[in-house]
């Protein structure tokens, strides 16, 4: 298919570099293939997964966050195997949007999704994903995909009205777009066919916590323990870590966890300063990091850090996450009426960027960034005023 071929050619140019790297251990360039070092791949690993691209700096495999502007600020995208932590804005209006953009990007790219929430049913979250804005070039790719999927009988049927073969089809079949980063229309919903065609797993805490399956004793709150087991199960069963001999997965698992740390998860760090479970969240993040580093997955977590009473926990959570982005909305603050900020809805702070496999990181020079949610698009711009 043309879509996969373009992606493959990008990887092929780096594939030859990998061939030299595998022969001699001295070269510093190493193509970041699947992080699963447990796989038995000894030769060069050409990773041609849809919706990913290698980083310009060190060949790290990146996935898009769903917002091309944010991808640029993060140095190209979110690295596979890392955690993107979103510090929620005060009234939790804009962080669900970033969460949904991430999942929508996974749907459009054909990745597997794992949605975990204690508040909303994951099926409902997926119904509310924004619709992708597909321009003509992408539509042509659709048509080619749909063409190849079409059975011969329907081709015969179309011969009767051959003139209409050239027009874009109205139905949208399973999408496998090879583009990296799409724009989404926040005012429209994602087409039902796309959602149904995607492979997703949901973790809704009230459903899972009621089951009486014996849980291994650990000092995590039961909700976190169940979630970790669920994630580990999916990673193993579907072969994202390469350890399952039956399944060799060539796809990315996108994990989305909403409102982690809120009281709905059974955690009391937002209620009490020195609660009994003060290490639960950090332990969870540590084990999650271990799971991610050894599998082809990327994770987005939204966390209400403004509610956490103990500031030390926020510092520890930041250390245990890879990318930390804070959202500060102007609603209810004095900046809402400030004429300088009238075009924007809030500020976005890139608090931390990881240095993965490298001494340096792709830090953006610009630190004053503001975002606004226009009728259709969520844009991030440099805030020249402050």
């Amino acid at each position, binding site marked *: 298919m043309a879509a996969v071929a373009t992606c493959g050619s990008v990887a092929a140019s780096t594939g030859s570099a990998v061939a030299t790297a595998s022969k001699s251990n001295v070269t510093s360039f190493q193509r970041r293939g699947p992080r699963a070092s447990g796989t038995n791949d000894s030769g060069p690993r050409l990773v041609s997964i849809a919706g990913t691209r290698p980083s310009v700096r060190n060949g790290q495999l990146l996935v898009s966050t769903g917002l091309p502007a944010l991808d640029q600020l993060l140095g190209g995208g979110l690295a596979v195997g890392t955690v993107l932590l979103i510090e929620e804005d005060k009234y939790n209006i804009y962080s669900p949007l970033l969460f949904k953009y991430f999942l929508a990007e996974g749907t459009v790219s054909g990745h597997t999704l794992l949605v975990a929430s204690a508040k909303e049913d994951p099926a409902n979250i997926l119904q509310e994903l924004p619709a992708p804005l597909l321009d003509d070039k992408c539509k042509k790719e659709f048509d080619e995909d749909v063409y190849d999927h079409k059975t011969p009988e329907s081709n015969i049927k179309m011969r009767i009205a051959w003139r209409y073969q050239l027009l874009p089809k109205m139905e949208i079949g399973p999408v496998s777009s090879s583009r990296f980063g799409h724009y989404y229309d926040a005012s429209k919903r994602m087409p039902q066919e796309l959602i149904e065609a995607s492979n997703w797993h949901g973790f809704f805490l009230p459903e899972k916590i009621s089951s009486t399956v014996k849980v291994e004793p650990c000092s995590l709150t039961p909700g976190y323990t169940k979630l970790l087991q669920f994630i*580990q199960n999916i990673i193993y069963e579907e072969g994202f870590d390469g350890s399952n001999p039956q399944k060799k997965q060539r796809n990315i698992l996108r994990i989305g966890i909403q409102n982690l740390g809120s009281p709905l998860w059974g955690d009391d760090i937002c209620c009490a300063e020195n609660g009994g479970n003060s290490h639960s969240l950090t*332990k969870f993040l540590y084990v999650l990091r*271990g799971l991610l580093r050894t599998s082809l997955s990327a994770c987005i977590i939204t966390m209400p850090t403004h509610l956490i009473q103990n500031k030390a926990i926020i510092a*520890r959570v930041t250390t245990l996450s890879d990318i930390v982005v804070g959202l500060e909305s102007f609603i209810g603050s004095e900046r809402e009426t400030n004429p300088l900020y009238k075009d924007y809805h809030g500020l976005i702070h890139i608090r931390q960027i990881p240095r993965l496999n490298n001494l340096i990181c792709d830090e953006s020079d610009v630190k004053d960034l503001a975002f606004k949610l226009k009728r259709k698009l969520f844009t991030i711009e440099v805030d020249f005023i402050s």
Partner: protein
Amino acid sequence: MFVELNNLLNTTPDTAEQGKLTLLCDAKTDGSFLVHHFLSFYLKANCKVCFVALIQSFSHYSIVGQKLGVSLTMARERGQLVFLEGLKSAVDIVFQAQKEPHPLQFLREANAGNLKPLFEFVREALKPVDSGEAQWTYPVLLVDDLSVLLSLGMGAVAVLDFIHYCRATVCWELKGNMVVLVHDSGDAEDEENDILLNGLSHQSHLILRAEGLATGFCRDVHGQLRILWRRPSQPTVHRDQSFTYQYKIQDKSVSFFAKGMSPAVL
């Protein structure tokens, strides 16, 4: 290793002092470049290194190590490097019941215990092998980083005890060196972390403190490094020496310069 940092510390792989505890500390910036420096430094000095890597995976250190001229995979194969990968072990411990005691088995326990299994692991890894000829010069323990142990439920006192036991074994008994990294939480009021940091500052011979610039982010100067030599055992007549340099991290090296003397400014 960074040659400029070696010059500032007045040391080379062949002439490094033994029996020393070096404390690496970072405040408002990422001090992991110091860990990479010391890892490659001691591997080049032909020491037996036990690396307790709690925060990143093996491949991360390996790839950076290749840029600095050491191969961690080869060092591990020939027995020079004993690598404890915390992230991978955590996944194994939490999801599978372990038959033998694991150095990080406190992750399964509900109450904060002590780090005795981890100390046993370190002692076992660094004990001299009776093979007749001395293959490695002296043992080195490297920990990245200790603040993670606090996040995982360990108390500051338990971590200090662990360091004390390791110091007694590695620095005094085996005449080796120790390098540990602790984050300075600054104004986040992390009491446990402050206890740990203060306790270690009093015990260490050399403190390297990487700080972000007080004036904020700068593209050409990534931070400031404070070097403090201490003589904990000697009387306080000898003043502790302290130097401050600013640095810029590049792809394969770090360049140091005096404050305000960045090449971009001059």
